């Protein structure tokens, strides 16, 4: 029994395939999904998304907030990750993100700009993901 996983953003389908487990970062804490999970709708925070592919390896990605939707039909579970933006680990340009983060931190000193804060959080999530490998 596997999960059918689709990671989509408004601009593209980031990844889709069969998986055995999905771990995502919800606003109220991490959620792990195995096959046969009850139907679920979670609001996702900016953070990592881990998918264990059928051969046992983990696929990592970063999600800039969104929703995770689990639907079960006739015994097969489907997981849809609806992200505003998402990148696979392999797609992240770490040096560029690091530079951008430094730039943001130096300009946003103490500023309460919501957009800058979000961008910093997004950059940090990407770097955290690349460090964890």
């Amino acid at each position, binding site marked *: 029994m596997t999960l059918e996983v689709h990671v989509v953003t408004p601009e593209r389908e980031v990844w889709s395939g069969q998986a055995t487990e999905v771990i995502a970062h919800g606003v109220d804490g991490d959620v792990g999904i195995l096959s046969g999970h009850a139907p679920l*709708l979670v*609001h996702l925070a900016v953070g990592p998304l881990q998918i264990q592919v059928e051969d046992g390896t983990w696929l990592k990605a970063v999600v800039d907030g969104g929703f995770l939707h689990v639907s079960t039909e006739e015994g097969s579970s489907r997981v849809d990750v609806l992200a505003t933006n998402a990148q696979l680990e392999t797609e992240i340009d770490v040096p560029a993100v690091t530079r951008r983060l430094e730039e943001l931190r130096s300009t946003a000193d103490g500023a309460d700009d919501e957009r800058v804060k979000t961008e910093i959080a997004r950059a940090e999530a990407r770097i955290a993901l690349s460090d964890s490998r």
Partner: protein
Amino acid sequence: MGAQLRIVRRRIRTVQSTKKITRAMELIASSRIVKAQQRVEASRPYAIQLTKAMEDLARQTGAVQHPLLEDREEPTKAGVLVLTSDRGLAGAYNANVLKVAESVIREVRSRGLEPVLYTIGKKGIGYFRFRGIPMRERWQGISEVPPYEEAERIGRTLIKDFADEEIDELYAAYTDFRSAFTLRATAQRFLPIAPEEVTGKGLGVVHAEYLFEPEPDEILDHLLPQYVVTKVYAALLESAASENAARRRAMKAATDNAEDLIKILTRQANRARQDEITTEIMEIVGGAESMAAVSEG
């Protein structure tokens, strides 16, 4: 060379260079239609799944209630979002969508509401500015290849204005891309969201064990604005594909016209050249004959 021949040849050269330009624009538009269509296709899975998640939520919680879903009791202002292009040379593309926008504005006024304009694209901005119609917001430089971030920014602005009661309703006038040959300027209500859009067909199993994290109300607070943003993005993408389709059609017509014109002008040039030759021969023959007459005499 005769004066008439020179003028005709000059016109042929002008038409030929115009034809080269329109032909190039036609080719560029063609390749952009394909890309724009791919972007429309790529955005569909997300929109479909988001709607599904919303329908699930609505079904599980029974009657959903949210300010974005409720008709205001005494609406006074209606927002009208108009999607036009930044560049012209796209046939009737902008004229058609502006016509729809005007009819929405008329309809809104007839109900005693004040229209509040949000305009995307230089053409629309110019149109309303020329008529002295004030615009609350305007955006440009995004119509041909609309980035998602802009759709999000526009969407959030509209939702904020709705929440702040700057507008009580929101309509969008844009061009629906049915196919490369069928473009339809159309108007749609974006806010408040019609509850039947959210609840779907209503048929489906209600799972007793359905889980929500956090509470359904809180999820809805994020899901509904995201739904509006997705609709704005879809309208932008449809309009971009339509703009390029309209431009290709207009440029193809211009290229064909140029070809016809070149054909006609070439004929005129040939006739003028032949006339010239005939006149010359006549002159020579006439001259020779008179010479012969003189020497015989």
